[in-house]
């Protein structure tokens, strides 16, 4: 029998894997992909709990999370292109022009 706890545990595992990727990788676009894994883990948690509680609010929140993720993807990738045009590399170690 699949209860809501199974979905929440899977959401926690996916979120942890995404966090591991964000902290470990150096390519900025792969870091962005790991952030998308984290966002999707939270979406799964929202929809599972919305189904469990019997409300539509969780699913509307997921709708808006998807909207914001799409907007963030567009702006973030345009930013990566601007960085690459400037310094010919996309590793986060090279984005240190604002350091003292």
């Amino acid at each position, binding site marked *: *029998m*699949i209860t*809501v*706890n*199974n979905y*929440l*545990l*899977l959401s*926690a595992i*996916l*979120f*942890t*894997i*995404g*966090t*591991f*990727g964000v*902290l*470990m*990788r150096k*390519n900025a*676009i*792969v870091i962005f*992909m*790991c952030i*998308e*894994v984290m966002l*999707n883990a939270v*979406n*799964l948690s929202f*929809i*599972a*709990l*919305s*189904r469990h*509680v*019997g*409300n*539509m*609010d969780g*699913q*509307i929140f997921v*709708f*808006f999370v*998807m*909207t914001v*993720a*799409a*907007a963030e*993807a*567009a*702006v973030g*990738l*345009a930013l*990566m*292109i*601007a960085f*690459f*045009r400037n310094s010919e590399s*996309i590793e986060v170690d090279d984005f240190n022009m604002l350091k003292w």
Partner: protein
Amino acid sequence: MQASLFYITAIVAIVSALFVIKCRNPVNSALNLVTVFICLAVYYVMLESPFMAAIQILVYAGAIVVLIIFVLMLLNLGMAVKKRYTHALAGSGSVAALLLLVAYSFLGKGQATGTGGEITSKVISEVGHTELIGRTLFIDFLLPFEIAAILLLIAIVGAVVLSKRNV
């Protein structure tokens, strides 16, 4: 039957997420990300939210991953260099393990209050999930919907301005 589908999809999703963080070629990471999105769409269908499953495939797998692969092909990066990442591995691994421990300790501890709301399986199969989302979105959440529209406009204009060569 539903339990076996859940566990098979869970294994595919977790293995694909591990490949997303592991692959040296970023295009391989993007392809495994599509697999994760499709597994989550399967879960949304199992949770009686078919509209959300369709929107997940359309927006995430169909638009965001296509944009990512487009940018990867445009930048033409090549494979990551195989360096020794031991410090990053130890640090991020300990943070991730701690996070999983904290999350696991919260599971099964309390009961969700406010259960027994009005959207039951019977209501979803009668009225239809799309109509329920439409009703909630355009009646209760109209202001956030309009703000999201303005946000998308800002994102479009921002993306165009950021990628121009001479502003």
